[in-house]
């Protein structure tokens, strides 16, 4: 279980997060929704150790994560597929997956996990020897997720996986998120596509300018009038 308590982050002179608290229970899909600049990405980046917190705490199975080096956060079982996919363009698809397993030493199991990722995303297998930079946007997103999975995370953080993708591709990605969750991976999902995210989420938080303004189950927020108007584009 990941627990964030009173987390404050200052980013380039701005209060990116103002004392937020949230829980990501094991085995659930939790989503953070909100407008641009609300602090969604900053939350994920702080958990992964890329951004330093000003105050507060982030505990992962009762271990404090703040102040830990990024590689030890990764090896403790937290992986992130960053916003904009950020695949290594001049590494092949296969190398991108291998680098996801950078901290692992169990060679045989790594080979099995590559096959597992290929079974989740058969398209990637066809593109195994292709440079990641030549893949389509959807394939790159699949690769970014697959790469994150190669560290065998217990918590998978996805930053805007639907960004810039065709609706059908987005549906595929969300299907996979569900499948992964059923296989026991906890998912923390940041999305602008609030409709898709809330449908899939067990638990959802709404972020507005660095503060959490609403929280509840995905269904609750889907029917919440404020959420409907602000994020789902529906007038009551």
């Amino acid at each position: 279980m990941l627990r964030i308590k009173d987390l404050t982050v200052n980013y380039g002179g701005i209060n990116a997060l103002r004392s937020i608290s949230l829980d990501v229970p094991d085995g659930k899909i939790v989503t953070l929704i909100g407008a641009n600049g609300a602090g969604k990405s900053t939350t994920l980046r702080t958990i992964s150790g890329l951004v330093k917190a000003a105050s507060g705490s982030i505990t992962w199975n009762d271990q404090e994560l703040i102040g830990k080096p990024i590689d030890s956060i990764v090896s403790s079982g937290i992986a992130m597929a960053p916003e904009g996919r950020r695949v290594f363009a001049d590494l092949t698809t296969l190398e991108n997956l291998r680098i996801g397993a950078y901290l692992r030493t169990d060679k045989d199991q790594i080979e099995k996990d590559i096959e597992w990722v290929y079974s989740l995303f058969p398209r990637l297998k066809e593109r195994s020897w292709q440079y990641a930079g030549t893949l389509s946007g959807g394939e790159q997103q699949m690769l970014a997720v697959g790469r994150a999975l190669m560290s065998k995370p217990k918590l998978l953080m996805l930053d805007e996986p639907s960004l810039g993708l065709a609706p059908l591709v987005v549906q595929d990605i969300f299907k996979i998120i569900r499948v992964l969750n059923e296989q026991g991976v906890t998912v923390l999902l940041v999305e602008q596509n609030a409709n898709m995210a809330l449908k899939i989420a067990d638990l959802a938080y709404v972020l507005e300018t660095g503060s959490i303004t609403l929280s509840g189950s995905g269904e609750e927020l889907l029917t919440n009038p404020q959420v409907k108007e602000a994020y789902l584009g529906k007038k009551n």
Partner: protein
Amino acid sequence: MKILLPYILSGVSVGGQYALIAIGYTMVYGILRLINFAHGDVFMVAGLVMVYLAASTPLYIAIPATILITVALGFTIERVAYKPLRTAPRMSVMISAIGVSYLIQNLTLYITGGLNKNYPEIPWISDKITIFGTTTTRVTLITPFLTVALCLILVWIINHTKIGMAMRAVSKDFETSQLMGIRINSVISATFVIGSFLAAVGSVLFFTNYPGIVPTSGSMPGLKAFVAAVFGGIGSIPGAVIGAFIIGICESLIKGLDTILVTQGVMASPFGFATFSDAFTFVLLIVILVFKPTGLFGEKQTDKV
């Protein structure tokens, strides 16, 4: 052809020595986008260390010890002068590199008193040999082969090992590499270690051909290796090697142009082309920057299909 041969031989040899330095420039640039101005001086220090060590220890200890000390120097420079500036603007790191370069030159000036230090004679490799009727030293012949062999090993490391894969990843995206659990500082250190190792090997081969070393001995070979790296496309290892060989051969041919033209009867008396051999390298730099700023094998944008 026969008259060209000695110049081509020595050109290939000096080209190989430039290549060993150029790889250090190109690798560091590839990862940090930094032109490590101190690299030529590290090369010079390798030469000086060899001078001092060879005076008191046998060569089979002096050479490996020189390489080790040079590697330690390269590693330390990165940790002390560049690592603290990791998040600073690129220009600050560049200025730090210039500072390190002058610091090293002035420290060695202080230690040596600016006097020319005689480079030790390394028996076997400085022996004279005759090839196709041309007399040369063994080092001239060994250098290109050693250079190419070391490059092939390096390229293999980069393409087929875990640390090589990490280097390729870090050179493109620090942040995402960190998300993979890669410790970027270790990868950057590894880059400096490799670059300094090759510079140390290059310095043994290079200075064997010269009578001695002064604190500025690293500047010219360093600059030429840098031009070679730019010519080949900075960031590309094969590019740096090919660029270095081309520059070495051209330089050597220009140095011999007077003799060649006079003996061929083209000119009655020498014109003094040799004076322009260094100038040629830098004219080449300007021409490359004007017509092909990314060099022979410079980074291309990957096109989506």
